Structures are given as structure tokens and as C-alpha cells.
């Protein structure tokens, strides 16, 4: 897993870390049931305060991404994982609907829209 903390971007440090762990879970870099580093180990590696990594884990837990077992550590959650993917999928649908509405109001055809999407995929693969 890769975590980069930017010194110029605005989100608070804990938010930056939390978002990147979330992404790693969503993209399957961190697998279900996988153990996360201890809050102290993560803090030391990222050179941030242990109070920050604790806040990150607390919030990830309350959002259902990880579970913490006392004395054992924190793990990527299993139960809500399907739900999580579902909600991400829903987000894509919402954005596509938005794009489709805008395209329709501008008179962009189905083929043109498909072509745009093809281009994005091609660029993404490069």
C-alpha cells in the first residue's frame, strides 16, 4: 500500500491518510481480513503523530471499513465490503447519469459519447 502525505494540499493530515487507506481497500490492494499495521508502526513510518493514526483507524472503523479486535489489531472488514462496492458502483451510475444528461442537452449523440469513453479507457491503459 502506498500512502503519500502532501505538504501543500489542504485536507488535514488524518484525512489524507484515511482516504488513501480507503482507496487501497476499495481497489483490493488491502484484502478482506488482512491485518493493518499497528497505529504506532503506521505513525512511525509516515512520521505523523500516533494520535493521528488512531483517529484514522477510529473513523475507518465507524465507517465500516475495518474492525479492531482488542489486543489483536485492526483488520480490513468483511461484512460491509459488498455494500462498499455497491455504494461505489452507485456513485459511478450517478456520475454517468449526470454526464448523459449534459450530453443530451448539448445534443451529443450516443456514438460520440461512447467514443469519448473509449478514448478515456485508451488513455487510462497507456
Amino acid at each position, binding site marked *: 500500500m502506498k500512502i503519500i502525505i502532501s*505538504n*501543500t494540499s*489542504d485536507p*488535514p*493530515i*488524518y484525512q489524507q491518510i484515511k482516504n488513501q487507506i480507503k482507496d487501497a481497500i476499495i481497489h483490493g490492494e488491502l484484502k478482506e481480513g488482512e491485518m493493518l499495521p*499497528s497505529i*504506532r*508502526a503506521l*505513525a*512511525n513510518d509516515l*512520521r*505523523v*503523530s*500516533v*494520535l*493521528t493514526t*488512531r483517529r484514522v483507524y477510529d473513523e475507518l472503523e465507524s465507517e465500516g471499513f475495518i474492525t479492531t479486535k482488542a489486543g489483536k489489531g485492526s483488520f480490513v472488514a468483511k461484512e460491509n465490503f459488498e455494500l462498499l462496492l455497491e455504494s461505489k458502483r452507485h456513485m459511478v451510475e450517478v456520475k454517468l447519469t449526470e454526464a448523459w444528461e449534459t450530453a443530451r442537452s448539448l445534443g451529443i449523440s450516443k456514438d460520440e459519447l461512447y467514443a469519448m469513453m473509449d478514448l478515456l479507457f485508451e488513455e487510462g491503459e497507456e
Partner: protein
Amino acid sequence: MKPILEVNGLTKQLGNFQLKDVSFSLTEGCITGFIGVNGAGKTTTIKLLLGLIQKDAGEIHFFGENVQSKEREFKSRLGIVLDEGYFYEGLTLLEMKNIVAAAYSHWDNSLFNRNIERFGLSLNQKIETLSKGMRMKYAIALAISHHADLLIMDEPASGLDPQVRMELRDILLEYVADGKSVFLSSHITSDLDKVADTIILIDNGQIVFSEEKDILLDQHGLVKGDTKELNDQTRNLFLTLQETEYGFSGLTKDKASVRQQMNNTLIERPSIEDIMLSYIGR
């Protein structure tokens, strides 16, 4: 994470200097950096904590218990590293250890030997032959070999070269990995504050702030831009401000207003030192 040590209303008059109503608490499992310029009251506070000088007023609780009623127990759970190691120069490391070890009921000699080996020290060396960095490591080995819950260090980084300071950082991070806590004082220029989880700033005998390090870093912004953007109103957004003919650079605690009221400014995350300097000398 619970508070391990709570200090309330600590007050002491020492000649012309007064420590005024000092209150703070240390969180378990954390490294707390106690920072301020020379003469700000750091060493006085530490001496009061350790009972080396008598306080005029105030209370100190360790794991919820008043330390005055349980002084022996309190001290046996502390590891202490003071500015000048109080060592007998002519003794070997082994001889000096035997004196110190006798004072602790929970002394763990195999842990001590592991630490000595890890720090690259040799027990039959005389103390007077130790370099400043080795002396510091020896003092730490003595301080952490009786399973202390809290390590208190006064200016551990002063006079150490960058390499030894880095080793010291790693030693501290390893120490707190087991849930133990560290309270260390340092000059504002020390890089030891980089490992601190919480920062307490003292100036002129008073606590200026006590805050999580990352929150301090998030709250404040180092702003750079064209001096044309500065006027009576926007100047008030800054704690400190430096201007040259090429532009300005200033520290703010109100990034949102800077963004609202000023155009084309660059806002970066400041260093702890930037933040400290802007609170002292105001």
C-alpha cells in the same frame, strides 16, 4: 489512550523567575515534546515533577494518583535522563550501573545488557572516555532498564550531532511502541520534536499551548505571495510576517480567511519551528 501524568496549577518562584500556573497532561503511549527557549521554564518544570525542588503550589497525578502520597512508587516507574549525566567520571560503565541498579527494585539486568549491546557500548569502558553521543545512549540505557512507564528527558538532543540525534529518535520510537510514554524537553531548534505526538510550548514561565502535533501543522499555514496583497485588514491574519521587495512570507492560523481575502497566495504546511517562533517573541 488515557492520561498518564496530569499536572495542575504548578507554581514556583525562583529569584526573579516565576513558573505560573502550569497545567498539562501526558497521554499514554505518546511522545510529548516540551519546548521553549532557554530560560522559559522547562528544566524548572521537570525538576518540580521529579521533586528535586519543592513547588509553591499545584498538584501532580500519575496514573490518577497523587504523587506526593506515593512518591517511591512513582519514582520507580520513571526513567530519568537529565541534561548533564550525573556520573562519576572515573568509574566504568559496569561500576556506575551497579550503583544505579541498586536504587531500582525492578531492575532488569538482561534488558540492560541488551540495550548496552544494541547501543554499541562496552561495559569496561571508563565514563570519562565516552563521547557526548555515547554518554547520552548510556544514560538512556540506565533509564529504560527497569521497565519504567514514563521516560522523562531534559534536553536530550543538545550538543548531539545529526546522526546520533537520528539514532535517539529511533530509540524513542521503539520505546513507545510498547505503549510506554516519553516526556522530553528541547530547544526550539531541535529536530526531536519531529517524533513528538504532542507539543507543549512554554514561554516566560507559562504554557502557551498544548496540542497534538499534526493538528498544529494542519491549523497553521505558511503563506507566501505578493506584498500588494497586504493591507491593514489582511495583515491581521498573520501571527508573523516577513516582507522583502520580492514578496512576503507569513504564518497564519486562519487559512480560510487568507484564501477568501487574498489572491494568488501559496499556502504551505509550516514546520513546528515556524509555528513556535511565531508564538514566542510576540
